């Protein structure tokens, strides 16, 4: 039976085949040589550049753009990767509009920043297409480090440690390394299996063993890891998902946004991914926007994103909100879910308007829904860890936890935004501290 956008319920194959490849094509395709030169030419090579300060990994942006301008994109890539080994992924997924490009002086001058993210991609893609891995391992130190979690934080830490000559084992329960790069980032930001290619490229440094099917808490214990290694780096991200806490949450069709995205990212053929006709996404961050946009791209007829506070408080950047709007996602703000209604499966969801302090107004409304995605934040969801600071593992500036010999970074650790680039920075900095500690 073939379905289309009007088919009620949750169904796969709502669109004609060719629409899928168009919908899930590269959001910002790589610049060609001419575009890159024109874009690079706009950079002023600022002193103590504000863009560089705004980058969590402190990439030397003026230098790498100058290297592009002078026809040496591979040298530019080295400048980038020196600071950020996942510079290729970050070029695709960083919310540049709130990071480097927001700080660019040409944003101040003309409201049009230098296209730093796209230039970064031009450089890193050029180097990776040439098959070059520009780093070498130092002489072996004989030290062994366990990295728990193969997401951006874990991979960045592992690479820097391997470069310093340590032997690294990375443990991850999932069948593939990459963390949310592989299972979370929106499909149109990382096309053609880029996440997996980048992991393979990163591992060319040598000295890193990835062990999949290995989870802390299920087979692996922190005590054992500590006993078997000279240091442990925890980079397990946020595996738990917050619950809505409303009546009817357990009905069929009420799903986790991250799980939906993970399934979509692993699908070989988007036409096999089922999606509701009337989809409601609850949340206001990047996950919510990504779930809503991708639901729409899969052929859902109506997609509504509902956020409990005002638009200005949404974690998703204005660029992300505009992207959602341009794809036809309707955004409703100042409304909290009250109840999920339906007989077995969800049919409707009831909301109540709330003011900016989340005080209920008593006014309610209902939206038709045959699928509801929860995207109201993720949690650590474990207890066998070093001391917490709020809901995350407490760490200092260099990732040290309350436990001697154990460092942590990325989404699971306190401090910094939950972004790929922040995870890379924290992994790198922890690696430097581990290295300094082990060699002291």
């Amino acid at each position: 039976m073939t379905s289309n956008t009007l088919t009620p319920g949750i169904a796969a194959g709502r669109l004609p085949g060719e629409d899928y490849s168009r919908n899930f094509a590269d959001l910002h395709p790589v610049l060609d040589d001419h575009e890159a030169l024109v874009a690079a030419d706009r950079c002023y090579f600022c002193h103590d550049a504000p863009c560089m300060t705004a980058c969590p990994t402190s990439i030397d942006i003026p230098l790498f753009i100058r290297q592009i301008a002078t026809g040496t994109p591979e040298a530019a890539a080295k400048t980038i990767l020196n600071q950020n080994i996942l510079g290729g992924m970050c070029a695709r997924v960083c919310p540049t509009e709130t990071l480097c490009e927001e700080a660019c002086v040409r944003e101040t001058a003309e409201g049009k920043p230098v296209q730093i993210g796209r230039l970064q991609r031009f450089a890193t893609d050029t180097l990776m297409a040439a098959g070059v891995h520009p780093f070498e391992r130092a002489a072996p130190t004989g030290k062994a480090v366990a990295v728990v979690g193969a997401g951006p934080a874990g991979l960045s830490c592992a690479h820097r440690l391997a470069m310093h000559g340590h032997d690294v084992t990375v443990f991850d329960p999932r069948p593939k390394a990459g963390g949310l790069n592989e299972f979370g980032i929106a499909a149109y930001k990382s096309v053609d299996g880029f996440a997996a290619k980048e992991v393979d490229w990163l591992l060319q440094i040598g000295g890193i063993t990835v062990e999949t099917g290995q989870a802390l808490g299920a087979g692996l214990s922190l005590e054992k890891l500590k006993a078997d290694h000279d240091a442990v780096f925890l980079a397990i991200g946020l595996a738990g998902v917050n619950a809505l806490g409303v009546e009817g949450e357990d009905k069929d069709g009420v799903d986790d946004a991250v799980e939906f995205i993970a399934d979509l990212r692993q699908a070989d053929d988007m036409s096999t991914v089922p999606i509701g006709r009337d989809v409601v996404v609850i949340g206001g961050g990047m996950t919510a926007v990504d779930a809503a946009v991708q639901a729409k791209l899969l052929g859902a007829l109506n997609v509504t994103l509902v956020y409990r506070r005002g638009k200005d408080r949404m974690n998703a950047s204005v660029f992300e909100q505009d992207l959602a709007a341009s794809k036809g996602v309707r955004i409703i703000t100042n409304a909290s879910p009250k109840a999920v209604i339906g007989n077995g499966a969800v049919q409707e969801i009831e909301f109540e308007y709330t003011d900016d302090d989340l005080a209920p107004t008593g006014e309610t409304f209902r939206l038709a829904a045959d699928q509801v995605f929860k995207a109201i934040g993720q949690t650590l969801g474990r207890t066998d860890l070093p001391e917490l600071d709020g809901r995350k593992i407490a760490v200092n500036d260099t990732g040290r936890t309350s436990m001697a010999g154990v460092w942590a970074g990325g989404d699971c650790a306190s401090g910094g935004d939950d972004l790929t680039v922040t995870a890379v920075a924290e992994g790198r900095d922890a690696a430097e501290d581990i290295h300094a500690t082990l060699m002291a």
Partner: protein
Amino acid sequence: MANLASEFIGIKSPNPFWLASAPPTDKEYNVRRAFEAGWGGVVWKTLGSEGPPVVNVNGPRYGAIWGADRRLLGLNNIELITDRPLETNLREIKSVKRDYPDRALIISLMVPCDEDSWADILKRIEDTGADGVELNFGCPHGMAERGMGSAVGQVPEYIEMVTRWVKKHSRMPCIVKLTPNITDVRKPAEAAKRGGADAVSLINTINSITSVDLDDFAPEPTIDGKGTHGGYCGPAVKPIALNMVAEIARNPETHGLPISGIGGVTTWRDAAEFMTLGAGNVQVCTAAMTYGFKVVQEMISGLSDYMDRKGMTSTSELVGRAVPNVTDWQYLNLNYITKAKINEADCIKCGRCYAACEDTSHQAIAMSEDRVFTVKDDECVACNLCVNVCPVEGCITMERVAPGQVDERTGKVVPEEYGNWLEHPNNPGNACAAE
């Protein structure tokens, strides 16, 4: 990464990028920071004789021209030599050299044109630990009027005489810095060589007025209603400097005389170009003054990247590589025939090539009703103007018409063999060839 270590007239530096004698090298504070940023060497801001230092103007001393997007292309200045006491400079030079023994440190000198003045200054700099001296015969403003700088540099006999004094009173390697404000740069270079110079460096700045204030009717930079000619430098002067370097490199009289290339070096590519034309290293002033000391990092990565690509392991393999290919017009192969070719896929249909060719060249580009631009092979003389005005790099290319094929413009078969003007039938010198 290719090793950029450089040796110039026996002076070693970790890379061939030196800062030219100018404000960036004016004091210890600058030079230390320059070395930290990665510069291989510096030529200290020109020192004068003992006694009260010169004074600079207190109004603006620079003028400029800009390209699109206000990119600085040319700078002009009316600054003099150092305006700080000699003793201060000498003390600072000694202290910097002690802390950076691996970097090149050259002292630039300009004193009155008598032997005692030169003997005296050379004695004073003796125990600074500096690696060599550069004789500033180039400064075109302020000092020339006092019988120094380009006033000396424009008279080959003076260059030879002063260089001889310097070699007589000092064992230091001696670089003679040449002024471009002359008609034939080979003459001063030959004079420097006769005087015993170990190397020449060029170019110093070019006499210039960058602009005129159209309300006050005075040249800029304007100081209290008046202006004066200044010295021009920066990217705009590079072509002039490249030619002068090449002229000296291929002149049989001076061939092999080490050259330090100066003038508009801004990127690794500029530096590489100077070196292929015979410069053993390069000196930089305006690029550092425009972008700060950090600009050298791109030069370092770019040059070593290029050398890696070319399989070169030492900068000496690059030096002079293009010199044999610099020739005189009369030796160019007139049987090498090319035609412009427009790649329609890259063309953005701006029509600039058409305007240039139709209005000012050979009417060799056709424009269709729907703005498709094509080259007419029977009109194209291969002048290259369209290539140069096209805003899209690589959109128009020059394609060779292979020997044996017909050149549609002349209707003649392209000959296999090389043929130059000297052998051409139209050359009046070949009276018999026409028969």
